[in-house]
């Protein structure tokens, strides 16, 4: 199981807590995690990545194991600690104020 922590704003859409568990077939990558997330929670389709271009939303970042994975290739393997569920993959929304 992959553990994924989502920004709080999405909880109202998924109607679950900020942490979700995802079963991944094959290698754990950013693409396979996002595919599994959108399959499990169709309401999130197109919100973390553009539904047409598949580009990551520019004001979101993917962190894990104290590393910024945001600009890794979509098909690059995630750290073993994430793939094993020991560490979560965290989606962070850019801070905003004013």
């Amino acid at each position: 199981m992959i553990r994924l922590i989502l920004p709080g704003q999405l909880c109202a859409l998924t109607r679950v807590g900020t942490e979700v568990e995802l079963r991944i077939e094959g290698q754990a990558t950013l693409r396979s995690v996002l595919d599994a997330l959108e399959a499990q929670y169709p309401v999130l389709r197109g919100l973390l990545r553009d539904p047409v271009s598949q580009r990551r939303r520019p004001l979101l970042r993917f962190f894990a194991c104290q590393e910024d994975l945001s600009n890794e290739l979509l098909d690059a393997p995630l750290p073993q600690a994430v793939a094993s569920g020991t560490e979560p993959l965290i989606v962070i929304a850019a801070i905003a104020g004013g």
Partner: protein
Amino acid sequence: MSGVRVLVGTQKCAFVLTSDGKRQRWELSGPHFVGWEIYHLKGSIADPNRLYASQYNSWFGQLIQRSNDGGETWEPVGNRFVLEGGIGNYEGYDGTPQAWEFKRIWHLEPSLTDPDTIYAGAEDAALFRSTDGGQNWEEFRGLRAHHSTRRWQPGRTAMCLHTVLLDPNNARRFFIAVMAAGVFRTDDAGETWRAINRGLKSQYIADPNAEVGHCVHSIKMHPRRPHVLFMQKHWDVMRSDNAGDSWQEVSGNLPSDFGFAIDVHAHEPETIYVVPIKSESEHFPPEAKLRVYRSRTGGYDWEPLTKGLPQNDCYANVLREAMGVDSLDPCGIYFGTTGGEVYGSADGGDTWMLIAQRLPPIHSIEVQTLP
């Protein structure tokens, strides 16, 4: 007893205001979609309990929400808006070609006859339609294929399609407006389009009479006279009596003919309303007095409506989508401000009351008259 539902889209959420036909006591429900910009909500005339909302924020992009119970519950529907390539570019601020890119939905216009059919105006400027209640969207590609699109340029805010008007007498005719290109009409259900900007004069473009380049803020029609259009332009209030083939200025004695919102009385097709704003750089009412202006003659002669509206220290704006009317008798008029206030009049504008306040800045007001 009949009633009224006012749909309020704000910078941070949405609200629904309801009242009975007297329109003196209002209930506020919400906030809905907390933390999201609600550019527009609108109900279907064919089924008043079917509502649609455009929900957007810069972190997560676009969602479209649908309600089947008058706004008590909502469900997200489709958010895949595909702009096919092959149309070329438009011109950016700096004169460089810009590739078309979907950013968000500014306006939702439900079909007049089918609650599952809805039109959506997008930024970058494009028109989409769904015929399955918002699940799937298809672009009217003919609009962006118009010969003028390479000369379309964004306004300061965006290059967006913000107005869609459907002709109740002719299902193949509709009107759209693009910031800052102008007005376009189709007479073949969206296959082909023509610019209908003759008579508009805009001093902020090289040729003030150009075919495109006009910053149209809002257009409204009376459903019994769909060939008569009223427009609030960046500057100038205009009317057309021939479905947009030509326009004439009707600003008359307005204290400023800059503004965003315009609307038409439900029972008097020549009675129209605007909220004059001081200028393009000073987005508040002249003399800081919040005044709706009414013309009973289709323009030219205007009277200020002030009873119940603040007549000092008002520095709020009324945006293009933020005015609506009900169809009770007397006609009700409503508008929302960027200061988060909703004002309503149950007597055609003669007197006003504050029906909600301290909301986030208001993007849109849509009014439903309920049986």
